[in-house]
């Protein structure tokens, strides 16, 4: 078998794995197999549909139009690559499947990179289809726009794929195998969160822009990669200013450097990396490490101390709390699902930093409060899903009357890990940037709503941590619908709280909300305690 045949087989394999996902564990056994061509068609149509949103920028300059397109391309393509790359580049089961077969390790890397690049280009082109048309025929458009934008979008796709591969290769080069697995997950999470944040902040910054006069926080705009690629379009098909030429140069140089490092200089480390993934025997712990283990984990100690020991008196609740935190901080699948999903909720505190005064901050504060509630519920939903769902049979085997204490432990873990830190970050953001602590009261409607909303999935015992397989179907659709309902409800709460604050009645509003919240929490708590184990479907 020649090298070309091997590459073709591997290419087909990794393309299939990219579109079908890492593993089908937990899927319903009757799930029909969907061809990757069908999946690809659906994904491309979805991306093309999302790209229709660019039509609202009909009257904007080439730079603004391009910045929007590149920011969202960066998010969608970057997210897609970052979430798949870890499993694709360093799948720890791959050694048992492929490394004992006659496949050169370098061929493995190149076919994976080729698939990543090809898919990112397909997705990028699909999303930008409408943009090509708008940039050509809009009032400030240019006939050169499609050519310029095609080139800059290709560069951006190469940049995304190259950055992702480079991040993994650097981890391999600088760190040994001992922390490789955990670190790869962390890199993947940081990449995903950065991509979501980077692409979300840019359009918000741009809401203040009408032309190329970037006097407001311009420096921040220029360090974001989408602005470089927008500069490329503007240099070719827009204003041709020195600034856009400089940004275009940065885009080309940065992409070149990333590609050179990722696919040239560091490519030889890949084979070593795959080998390292398989050297499973742990290094003996240091004396300090053994002493730490003997003394117990920090978290165990914290839970044994007030106020957590008072809050977690029920041993089952405490066990569920620790289990939830362990998965949220250690488990690769859990972290990759949860943190990128929660990233958009960091927009509100970031927005407080990025806007100075005015009604925007008022709304950002109110939204930050509502995000506390929404995020807590979303986190509970995500925490319920795990590849290890079958292991939760142990809960049903244990002498526990119903799932209430397990749900409550998970609920408290989400409050400790997500809601409290986010509330603190939002408060600090206001304190540092505006010095008007009085506005912090706008967080309170969300803070009061938070326990109510976090009890909703618990009331029927549906928030048992790690108990559901990662599957779609009716249950996921129901969760999605209830989450949409919560989003709408909190949106109403945001606008109502800002209106009553402006009218000077916020105190009365909070008092009424508090009373309603207490009643609802008591009712749901009672309902949760009466709930029995849900039937396994």
């Amino acid at each position, binding site marked *: *078998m020649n090298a070309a*045949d*091997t590459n073709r*087989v*591997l290419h*087909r*394999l990794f393309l*299939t*794995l990219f579109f*079908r*996902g*890492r*593993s*089908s*564990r*937990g*899927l*319903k*056994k009757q*799930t*029909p*197999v969907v061809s990757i061509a069908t999946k690809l068609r659906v994904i491309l149509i979805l991306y093309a549909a999302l790209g229709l949103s660019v039509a609202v920028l009909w009257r904007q300059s080439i730079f603004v139009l391009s910045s929007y397109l590149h920011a969202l391309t960066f998010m969608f393509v970057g997210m897609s690559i970052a979430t798949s790359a870890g499993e694709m580049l360093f799948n720890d*089961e*791959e*050694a*048992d*499947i*492929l*490394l*004992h*077969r*006659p*496949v*050169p390790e370098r061929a493995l890397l190149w076919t994976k990179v080729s698939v990543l690049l090809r898919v990112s280009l397909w997705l990028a082109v699909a999303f930008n289809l409408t943009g090509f048309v708008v940039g050509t025929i809009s009032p400030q458009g240019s006939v050169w726009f499609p050519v310029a934008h095609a080139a800059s979008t290709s560069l951006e796709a190469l940049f995304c794929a190259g950055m992702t591969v480079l991040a993994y290769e650097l981890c391999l080069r600088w760190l040994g195998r001992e922390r490789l697995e955990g670190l790869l997950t962390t890199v993947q999470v940081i990449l995903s969160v950065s991509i979501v944040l980077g692409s979300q902040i840019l359009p918000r910054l741009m809401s203040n822009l009408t032309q190329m006069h970037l006097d407001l926080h311009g420096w921040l705009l220029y360090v974001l990669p989408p602005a470089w690629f927008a500069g490329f379009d503007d240099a070719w098909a827009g204003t041709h200013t020195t600034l856009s030429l400089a940004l275009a140069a940065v885009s080309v140089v940065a992409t070149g450097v990333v590609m050179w490092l990722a696919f040239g200089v560091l490519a030889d480390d890949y084979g070593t990396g795959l*080998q390292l993934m*398989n*050297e499973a*025997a*742990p*290094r*003996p712990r240091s004396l300090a490490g053994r002493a730490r283990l003997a003394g117990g984990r920090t978290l165990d100690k914290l839970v044994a101390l007030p106020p957590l020991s008072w809050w977690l008196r029920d041993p089952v609740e405490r066990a569920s709390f620790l289990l939830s935190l362990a998965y949220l901080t250690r488990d690769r699948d859990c972290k990759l699902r949860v943190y990128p999903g929660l990233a958009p909720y960091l927009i509100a505190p970031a927005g407080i930093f990025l806007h100075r005064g005015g009604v925007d901050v008022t709304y950002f504060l109110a939204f930050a409060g509502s995000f506390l509630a929404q995020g807590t519920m979303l986190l509970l939903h995500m925490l319920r899903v795990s590849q290890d769902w079958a292991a939760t049979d142990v809960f049903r085997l244990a002498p526990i009357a119903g799932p209430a204490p397990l749900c409550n432990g998970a609920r408290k873990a989400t409050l400790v890990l997500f809601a409290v830190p986010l509330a603190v970050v939002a408060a600090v953001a206001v304190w540092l940037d505006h010095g008007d602590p009085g506005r912090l009261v706008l967080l309170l409607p969300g803070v009061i709503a938070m326990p109510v909303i976090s009890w909703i999935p618990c009331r029927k015992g549906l928030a048992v941590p790690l108990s559901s397989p990662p599957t779609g179907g009716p249950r996921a659709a129901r969760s999605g619908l209830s989450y949409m309902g919560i989003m709408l409800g909190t949106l109403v709460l945001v606008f109502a709280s800002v209106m009553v604050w402006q009218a000077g009645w916020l105190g009365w509003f909070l008092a009424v909300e508090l009373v309603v919240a207490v009643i609802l929490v008591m009712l749901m708590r009672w309902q949760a305690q009466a709930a029995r184990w849900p039937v396994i479907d």
Partner: protein
Amino acid sequence: MGSQSDPVIVLDRLTKRFGSQVAVDALSFSVPSGQIVGFLGPNGAGKTTTLRMLTGILQPTTGTARVCGLDLQSDALESKRRIGFVPESGAVFESLTGLEYLEMVAALYGIPAKAARERIEQFIAFFDLSFDTLVSKLLGAYSKGMRRKVVITAALLHNPAVVLFDEPLDGLDANAAVGFKTLIQTLAREGKTILYSSHILDVVERVCDRVIIIDKGRLLLDGAPEELVATHQAGTLENLFTQLTGGAELQRRAEDFAKTFLP
């Protein structure tokens, strides 16, 4: 294929260290063509690490290994073409159907599509697998036994000269296990060399021409099972194994534990 006495697998002072921990310690042995060798040892003895070095998944720290006269490091691809490996993990790409997976594996060994399909159908018939299931369901939805059958098929599809089994019976039902034992005996009669790692000692005793017992990465014993049992007056291979690897002490501790905690 060489004669019965030509060594097909040769390990020469093969060593693997993970940091300061020695997993395999200067292990040397050779296996001639057509022999079924039971590769035994307690948990953590270094069996799986040795098999993973023999398949090229792991690089040895020092020492060499040769398969069919080919050095595993300098002739990596050629030696891999001659090896079939059933890993203990039973790992497969769960997002592929069984047929997609087997066809992918066949293609990696350069087996033409038509020939591959014919071979796959022969294995399907042998293992009593449903072709519809193989075509229509992802491997992630297979039972453990079905998945194991697919992994064994994937190891034998390219008709390798050397087959390495790491706990191959895990997940197979009694009938499939009987069929599998007959299969490996037939393979050996046709000249295949088989290294068989397992904890099920009575199967090893019945199937293998020879056993190699290792502990802490070192060779403890090497010979025909009946000769070793007779020489050590152990009665059975299981008794011999427990004598050599500290199993008797474990048995005494288990009895003490049961008396103390489960009166």
